[in-house]
């Protein structure tokens, strides 16, 4: 079985059938691009993978662990859902940075909140072991200081990866779209997701800013990250992907290597789609 195996995802919104039996597999360290015209269900698929939507039917296995199956009646608790979500990262088209926090705080916020939860647990454990209040406080404060430093250090190294070390104390409103998206990528990476998903990461950007974001994503490929990228940048998809899927009307119509998809498309809808996007690029 593949590292990430999505089987038979179905999703309706009222009368609209958005996903109609989608199967996707991604191997560890592989980059999968999803292409397809707008409205074909790409975003919905990513949202299902990230537990922002619940598929009506289907199952998902990651790294041998079943994360979702519509056959199981029991609903996940909020805590279980959060745990499962953390297997994945999602970079949004519109960045969704937290405007009130600096760049570095945007990155450290979620890890710090996780740390606080862990500290609360640790405190309870120590209490159970009968460790006295002051002793407990000293130990916890030491632990907290070390961990906080680690989180900070990790954030700075991620900022280096995305080339924004000098912007660490800036606020999102002071950054260009391309810089915002690079912060969003660093923020997602800070939680060490097993699979990082991108939903049209450059669609909201001015054309001259797409390059810097695509370069960062490409550099992540060289670190062997497993990634799923929804994109309209055909040149980029061809270049960076190990596998490409073409989606149309809620179904996966063709799946293959970039050569198979771009040089040797078989499906007529895909052929038509490719001709329209390349026409657009020429225009």
């Amino acid at each position, binding site marked *: 079985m593949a590292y990430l195996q999505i089987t038979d995802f179905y999703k309706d919104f009222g009368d609209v059938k958005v996903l109609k039996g989608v199967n996707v597999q991604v191997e560890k360290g592989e980059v999968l691009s999803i292409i397809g015209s707008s409205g074909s269900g790409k975003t919905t698929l990513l949202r299902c993978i990230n537990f922002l939507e619940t598929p009506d039917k289907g199952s998902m296995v990651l790294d041998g662990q079943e994360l979702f199956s519509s056959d199981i009646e029991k609903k996940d608790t909020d805590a279980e859902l959060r745990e499962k*979500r*953390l297997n994945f990262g999602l970079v949004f088209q519109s960045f*969704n940075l937290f405007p*009130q926090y600096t760049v570095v705080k945007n990155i450290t916020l*979620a890890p710090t*909140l996780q740390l606080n939860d862990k500290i609360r647990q640790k405190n309870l454990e120590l209490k159970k072991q009968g460790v006295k209040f002051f002793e407990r406080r000293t130990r916890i404060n030491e632990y907290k200081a070390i961990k906080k430093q680690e989180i900070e250090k990790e954030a700075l190294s991620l900022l280096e990866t995305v080339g924004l070390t000098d912007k660490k104390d800036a*606020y999102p409103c002071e950054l260009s779209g391309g810089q915002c998206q690079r912060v969003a990528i660093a923020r*997602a990476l800070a939680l060490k997701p097993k699979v990082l998903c991108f939903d049209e990461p450059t669609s909201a950007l001015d054309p001259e800013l797409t390059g810097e974001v695509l370069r960062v994503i490409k550099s992540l490929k060289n670190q062997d990250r497993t990634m799923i990228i929804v994109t309209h940048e055909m040149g980029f998809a061809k270049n960076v992907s190990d596998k490409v899927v073409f989606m149309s009307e809620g179904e996966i119509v063709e799946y293959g290597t970039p050569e198979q998809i771009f040089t040797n498309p078989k499906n007529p809808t895909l052929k038509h789609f490719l001709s329209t996007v390349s026409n657009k690029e020429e225009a």
Partner: protein
Amino acid sequence: MNLSLVLGELTKGFGKTLLLFAITLIVALPLGLILSLGARSKFKPLKYLVKGLIWVVRSTPLMLQVLFVSFVPFYGFGILNKDLAGFLGVEIYSLTFIFIAVAFALNYSCYFAEIFRGGIESISKGQYEAGKVLGMTKSQIFFKIILFQVIKKVLAPVSNEVITLVKDTALASVLGFEDLFTVAKGLVNQYVNLAPFLYAALFYLVFNGVLSLLFGYLERKVSYYKE
């Protein structure tokens, strides 16, 4: 007319006004936040109950609400004010203040609730989803991401309400509460001289001036970032 005596009386009245003002805000700001969340609840009965309350409170005069609250113990439950005061262990006089404060707090929490609801609804869905995919709990998302952005959004309308509240405290005179306005009115009658009204106006003016400065400071404080 003895000026220092008059000013002394007015200052005492202003103290009462200030007390009503402070208690109203201390109760109504958090209660307004809770009501705004109730008005957005997925649990329909709660949602419509809160919305109904907000509608009634915002559609009727505050002065009527003050009277209404003061009538509730007797006409609603047949309890004499004397007995209620005894039960609560307070003077009749304090009971009057409690009635007024309850009506004011309820009234203002409904106005604040509407302001907060507007603020909360103006935050994009993307902010919640970004928090979710980062593994945050619902309360972490609300308190660490949403709340501050809402506060920034609602600061200006809240400051308007607060300034209105300063002036609304004069409505407490309907139950004979000795706030600034009631004291001024008494002095005007007593001395057959309009000057106490003028002095009272100065009190209101200076107090609202201070509040305007304070809110201006807060607004500058949260304007370190743009959307």
